[in-house]
């Protein structure tokens, strides 16, 4: 019988995945005011790339590192090539382009790798960890650990490096950034690259649990959106907190609320999104949106 603590840890592990993807979503939203509906598919696709490398015999951490680099470059290229022509276009146009990207990546993965469900290895040993009589999965703990390290690195990058400062500036005030000689377009590209990098880590961490198939990230992405919405789409910190929260809520609701069980999980995400958008659209930590007339 799983105790509450086990459920919470388990929830935090899924929450870590949501938090990473939510951070990726918020980074892009802050820079370009775009909700990247294709973020999950980008993560899925890079996970497949990792899988190819593993199949070719590469050791796990080498494939991991290579995938992360490829994801970064891929994200950068996608922004510069696909998104840049429509950056200033209407909301609808950008949404449509992102959905187009989603669909292309999904079908590309299906075409190259087929729709057969594949297993994906976890770098963490399968033996459970026993702490004070309670059993925890090492993969869960590993996911939480890796995610926290990643998030700290991203935070440090933005806070303490000049490039990070320039990227934040470009997101906040592109016009003034240009007056400082900052190449705003490339900053946006870097933002997408970093977001894709973070997403690729999330993909590789979650694939061992939910198995690799082209549609694997749909549910996760919507939960990441729920987390970002709950935490505040304008706040990276909020997105991370929101992601963890949503993971825990999902797990606890699934276990303790018999009405929901495991069958209505996606509806829970829908419920969270709608509830937050109606009651407090800026989320827990976001800034209030002021509409200028």
């Amino acid at each position, binding site marked *: 019988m799983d105790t509450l603590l086990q459920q919470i840890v388990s929830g935090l592990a899924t929450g870590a995945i949501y938090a990473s993807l939510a951070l990726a979503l918020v980074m892009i939203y802050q820079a370009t*005011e775009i*909700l990247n*509906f294709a973020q999950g598919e980008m993560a899925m696709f890079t996970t497949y790339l990792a899988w190819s490398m593993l199949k070719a015999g590469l050791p796990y951490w080498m494939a991991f590192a290579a995938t992360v680099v490829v994801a970064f470059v891929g994200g950068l290229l996608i922004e510069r090539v*696909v998104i840049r*022509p*429509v950056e*200033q*276009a*209407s*909301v*609808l*146009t950008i*949404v*449509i*382009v992102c*959905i*187009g*990207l*989603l*669909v*292309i*990546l*999904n*079908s*590309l993965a*299906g*075409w190259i790798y087929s*729709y057969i469900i594949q297993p994906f290895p976890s770098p963490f040993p399968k033996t459970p960890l026993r702490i004070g009589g309670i059993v925890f999965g090492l993969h869960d703990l590993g996911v939480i650990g890796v995610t926290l390290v990643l998030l700290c690195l991203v935070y440090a990058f933005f806070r303490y490096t000049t490039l990070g400062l320039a990227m934040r500036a470009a997101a906040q005030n592109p*016009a003034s950034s240009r007056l400082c000689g900052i190449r705003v377009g490339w900053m946006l590209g870097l933002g997408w690259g970093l977001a894709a990098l973070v997403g690729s880590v999330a993909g590789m961490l979650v694939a061992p649990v939910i198995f690799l198939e082209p549609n694997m990230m*749909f*549910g996760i992405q*919507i939960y990441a*959106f*729920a987390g970002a*919405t709950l935490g505040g789409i304008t706040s990276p910190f909020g997105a991370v907190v929101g992601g963890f929260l949503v993971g825990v809520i999902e797990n606890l609701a699934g276990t303790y609320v018999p009405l929901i069980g495991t*069958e*209505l*999980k*996606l*509806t829970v*995400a*829908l419920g969270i*999104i*709608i509830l937050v*958008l*109606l009651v407090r*659209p800026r989320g827990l930590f976001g800034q209030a*949106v002021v509409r*200028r*007339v």
Partner: protein
Amino acid sequence: MRSALRLLGSGALLVVAVLLPFVLSGFRVFQFTQIWVYAMVLLGLNLLTGYNGQISLGHGAFYALGAYTTAILIDHFGVPYGWTIPAAGAVSFVVGFLFGIPALRLEGLHLALATFALALSVPQILKYFDSWTGGSQGIVLSKPRAAFGLTLGPDQWLYYVSLAILLILLALTRNLLRGRPGRAIVAIRDNPIAARAMGIDVALYKSLTFGVSACYTGIAGGLGGLAVAFVAPDTYNVFLSITFLVGIVVGGLGSIAGAIFGALFIQFVPNYAQEISKAAPWAIYGLFLIGFMYLMPRGVAGFFREARRRRSSGARADTEAPFTSEGGHHAEA
């Protein structure tokens, strides 16, 4: 002279449409029925997204609602199919209108997100209430037989019923958009605050548009279910909603005739592309979505309209208003 030509052209197309079932095989007739059904959905979705500017990535939900309303009424309550179609429309209208009320508070991106989440939840919700919906197995229906003693096969009968309803909806929509409601709807898309300042009840119009849009889609869902003679949850997944989006993009955002172009596209492309590979239709959809946003933001119908307008001098204000690419969410200092 020009409008006489257009009238003649439309008339010719109508004659062709009426004669088709006598020329084509049963399967092709079914495909064209599906095209009329899709055209109704696209008409409704375009009304909401193209003309009124409310982005919906979840119209598959209303399609499913219509389909299951029809199926449940027939299967559980023995209602004659003729009544189930208006019922599907009515139920969808109410649900759409009710959904439109909270949607008022959601800006473009947030509404897109909420409707996307809705689209994702539909199969799960349908499977959950399995005592009504038949769960994963779905509900089997029988194709309705021709009424009024006409000697038509079930496929052909459904073809004419769908075509008739489509024509009615086309006429209704055209009239709606040509009148004051139409101008109000477009004004709300282009500048909601100015619209409110001009005395338009933005909230009411937006919710009503949602309702009407859902109504068209629900009617289509019911007819679609009858045409296939089967409803099952996994058909109504997020990809269906995305298919509808492809339809209005290719056909033309903010265009009535575009509904038919778009329907033709989304019906036939998968048929032929699937010969290449299972994944091909979606790759094509994706390329078209992105390509059209780069090159033809107003879709096929808009492209023709632009060509006509450029040939004739002087732009005429049309209720088939060009889709403006000004979202208004960036305030330039």
